[in-house]
């Protein structure tokens, strides 16, 4: 499992995260939500080992600042928010980069299989830089899936996916596809931590929600306990009404949001 204790981060001398204590369990999708500037992405960067921190971050029992990048790359994959690429690699080559970084033996069909999972089976020959933003985001996900391989290592330890706004440039169909892939990965025994802006998708797919506010963890719990009128309204600074639609509907959380009202 993933656990932090007293996690604090300063960036350029400014405290950005203060005393965060959270947990994420393998087997379920854990969502990090909160308004802009609440520290979601900083928390994500600390959890993935990208920036220094004070306190503890234990991933499968190991303190992540003690792990080399190569060791981390075999137990967790990270989907970045933006996917710039400085040279004209093909989609196949980008996904293969992920596969080469991972723990599992290289398979010639590895990149192709990962691309099929994200719905880009016939994109292998395309140049990454010429794809749309949404297509690039899915290629990046395929790269991360190719890196991390199966959700559980041969020794029976969970592997982890860290997704930073995984659906930010996707249409609704692909949002559901990608969130479904993440949930399947968790259901098969892996761990998934995702920074989410869309509270409806959070309600649909997350089993545990971390609500961030002003660089601190405001609440952690199951969605029905966190996604409440009062908590969300206070956190986002606007009036939010939570409704529950029929079980098969996409929008579980119609919210009316008027800036300057409530708070």
């Amino acid at each position, binding site marked *: 499992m993933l656990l932090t204790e007293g996690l604090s981060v300063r960036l350029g001398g400014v405290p950005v995260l203060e005393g965060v204590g959270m947990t994420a369990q393998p087997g379920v999708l854990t969502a990090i939500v909160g308004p802009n500037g609440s520290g979601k992405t900083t928390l994500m*960067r600390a959890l993935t080992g*990208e920036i220094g921190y004070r306190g503890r971050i234990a991933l499968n029992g190991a303190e992540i600042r003690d792990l*080399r*990048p190569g*060791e981390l790359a075999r137990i967790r994959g990270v989907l970045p928010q933006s996917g710039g690429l400085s*040279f*004209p690699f093909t989609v196949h080559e980008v996904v293969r980069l*992920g596969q080469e970084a991972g723990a599992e033996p290289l398979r010639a069909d590895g990149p192709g299989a990962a691309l099929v999972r994200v719905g880009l089976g016939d994109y292998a020959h395309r140049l990454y830089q010429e794809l749309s933003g949404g297509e690039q985001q899915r290629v990046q996900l395929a790269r991360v899936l190719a890196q991390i391989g199966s959700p559980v290592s041969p020794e029976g330890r969970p592997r982890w996916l860290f997704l930073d706004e995984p659906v930010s440039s996707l249409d609704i169909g692909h949002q559901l596809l990608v969130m479904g892939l993440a949930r399947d990965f968790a259901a098969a025994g892996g761990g998934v931590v995702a920074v989410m802006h869309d509270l409806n998708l959070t309600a649909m797919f997350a089993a545990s929600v971390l609500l961030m506010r002003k660089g601190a963890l405001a609440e952690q719990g199951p969605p029905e306990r966190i996604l409440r009128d009062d908590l969300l309204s206070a956190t986002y600074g606007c009036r939010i009404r939570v409704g529950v639609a029929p079980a098969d509907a996409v929008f579980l959380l119609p919210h009316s949001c008027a800036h300057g009202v409530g708070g």
Partner: protein
Amino acid sequence: MATPAPGNAAPVRSGDRSPRARRLCLVLVLLMLVMSALSLGAGASDVSASDSFGAWLAGRDLPLRDRIVLFDIRLPRLAMGLLVGAGLAVSGALMQGLFRNPLADPGLVGVSAGASLGAVAAIVLGGALPAGLGLLPAAALVPLFAFAGGWVAVILLYALATRGGRTSVATMLLAGIALAALANALVGVMIYKASDAALRDITFWSLGSLSGAHWSKVVLAAPLILTALLLSPLLARGLNALALGEAAAMHMGVEVQRLKRGAVLAVAAATGASVAIAGGIGFVGIVVPHLVRLASGPDHRWLLPNAALLGAVLLAGADIVARLVVAPAELPIGIVTAIAGAPLFLWILLGQRIRLEG
């Protein structure tokens, strides 16, 4: 149907361009052999390389003149051309990968500016040096000073750009510009003080030339350039991952700081040694990696060796041109590479702009 942007190898069906890169590698090895044979046969004297080598292989004695022309003039010159071409081209590929920019040049890490300061200092102050250094022949002084100058510049730049164990590539780029300006100013001071003979030496050094080729220079440069060439494949996977950004590279298991240090050291060794023995030869470092990417894609596992091969082939070829166009005199090779390279560079630049704006 979008036209492929310049700078991209046309895609292949599977998206895997490594078979094509492998074929390119074979072709370049063959081209290098052909170019080497041509180079040994070309020159102001009428010595035929094939006849002489045939005789030599058959165990017959060669006339002294032929032996000198082949083994003491043309062969070291060919070796220097191949080494310098490969060294500059691999340095360019490493710099472009490190700076994540296809227009980066080995000169960006300050090697060239430092080296020219060292060379000019040796030319101008050569006579006034302390006794120990005065024992060295002037011909050896210039490459040694150039090499030392290049290294001092790189180490200074690396130290300036590194804070808390992290090197900022952007700081390196900007500090490199400032350092180069400073080195050029110091060169200016020395030029102001220089005698007419020294001025002429400085001009020819800065144009770049293989004309002073000698086995001693080959021996000086070969270990450094070959080490950089042979170790560069260790950086290939890291540079590939770095194309996705520093954070993504780290997420993919790359020790980014170690990668940066390795790349800077390799460039300092290869470019430093190349500039030391051949002076300022421009455009090979920028243009050659670009041509290779054009032919078989940006995968550094193939880009680095193929750039080395193409750099070697092109510089050996440019040297043949330099020797033949104004025979029995010869052009500084830097002029040949600039005349061929500058238009290519502009073409790349315009292609980039079209891609960025289109």
